[in-house]
């Protein structure tokens, strides 16, 4: 996180994180809709809405000052992927709400850790305060998602076995 030292740099990173999370969940919701898994589609759609809402709030925080434009590969996430983005290969057409929320839970945890690292770093005091607030918010999300997931049973042992597979190796 060497290059995130000012408030605008922080907000530019936070915005990219939330926009990417919203975009991924929207893609996953479409995937589940296309493959007729409506329950998980609704769940991902709701996550996309929440992340998008968060992104818009960050935009408002930046006020009239335009945020610096950073090429997608030049962000300093400490990793190739933004912390809140779920891996594209992680979804499955037969996945259950419990599994989907497990992915969301991990993503929220990674986001909380990322913001906390910035809060504990040596950037501007104002920026570190903001990062600590974001970390708190993400931790709250972790708890909320955990409660949400508690409403669903874990998947059955052979959850991915399909008696009538749409694609069979020929």
């Amino acid at each position, binding site marked *: 996180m060497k*290059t995130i*030292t000012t408030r605008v*740099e922080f907000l530019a990173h936070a915005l990219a994180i939330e*926009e990417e999370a919203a*975009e991924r969940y929207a*893609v*996953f919701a*479409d*995937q*589940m*809709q*296309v*493959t007729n898994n409506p329950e998980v589609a609704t769940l991902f759609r709701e996550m996309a809405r929440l992340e998008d809402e968060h992104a818009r709030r960050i935009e408002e925080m930046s006020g009239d000052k335009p945020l*610096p*434009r*950073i*090429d*997608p*590969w*030049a*962000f*300093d996430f400490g990793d*190739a*992927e933004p912390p809140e983005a779920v*891996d*594209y*290969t*992680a*979804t*499955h*057409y037969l*996945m259950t709400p419990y599994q989907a929320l497990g992915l969301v839970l991990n993503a929220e945890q990674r986001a909380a850790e990322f913001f906390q690292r910035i809060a504990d770093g040596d950037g501007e005091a104002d920026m570190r305060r903001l990062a600590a607030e974001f970390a708190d918010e993400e931790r709250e999300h972790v708890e909320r998602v955990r409660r949400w997931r508690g409403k669903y049973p874990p998947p059955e042992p052979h959850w991915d076995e399909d008696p009538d597979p749409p*694609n*069979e*190796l*020929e």
Partner: protein
Amino acid sequence: MEQLSTRQAALKPKDYKSDNKPVWCPGCGDFSVLSAFTKAMSAMTLDPERVAVISGIGCSSRIPAYLNVYGFHAVHGRALPVAIGLKITRPDLTVLVAGGDGDGFSIGGNHFLQACRRNVDITYVVMDNQVYGMTKGQASPTTAPDWMRSKLTPHGTRINPFYPLVIALASGANFIARASSNDPNGTARVIAEAVEHPGFSFVQVLSPCVTFRPEQRDWKKIVRPAPVAPTADPAVAARRLMTDDNFFIGTLFKGGRAPFESGFAPRAEVAGELERSFGLTA
């Protein structure tokens, strides 16, 4: 922070996506490559009306339908000649080609060699999953010889796989790179670099087929950045490929050959002649 770009934000990556929902299997690596295309186009602030993405046939070749730029879904294996023809007649366009290892290296294999030789200024992105995904899981040229999961090759193909980067270098491609769908931002960077480099640019993207090659989900544990900077010397690039295990990612080669230009101005009457000879006009 030095990596701040001074380019003005025009369109966001999602503005380059069309309204069509991909019908790929959830988990397919091609979702990430689609995202990389849109990120590269946004970072380069490309005007969608001045971009064309040409493809052949296959799951990966569906990409033009999911983008909000000009596109052409050509017949199987023929994306490169279509794209080359377009670029020669419309040099003002940014032309990209997208497809799979089957489309590009089996039926389209000879076009690949000639496109590398000809060095027209286009970018070719191959989503390599070492299988024919669309036709339900047959071996492709990049499949390992001992892969036995297809009924067509129950004992494996037992023939030498095709090494796309080696072939591209030997045939004269002017930019050669490998990326991984596990890193959409890194893939976007390589695509942008490839577009900006003059001449024929070739990018192999390791993009898992989670349906017919589920074991490829583990590629994310194996891929790693090549520990060397790109070279402009083909001999150095060739030596590096000798020790390549096919999982190093990054830009290998950036050559200095001048791109091919036809030297002829496009003639409208040729199109008219063609239309007449095919009986399309009176």
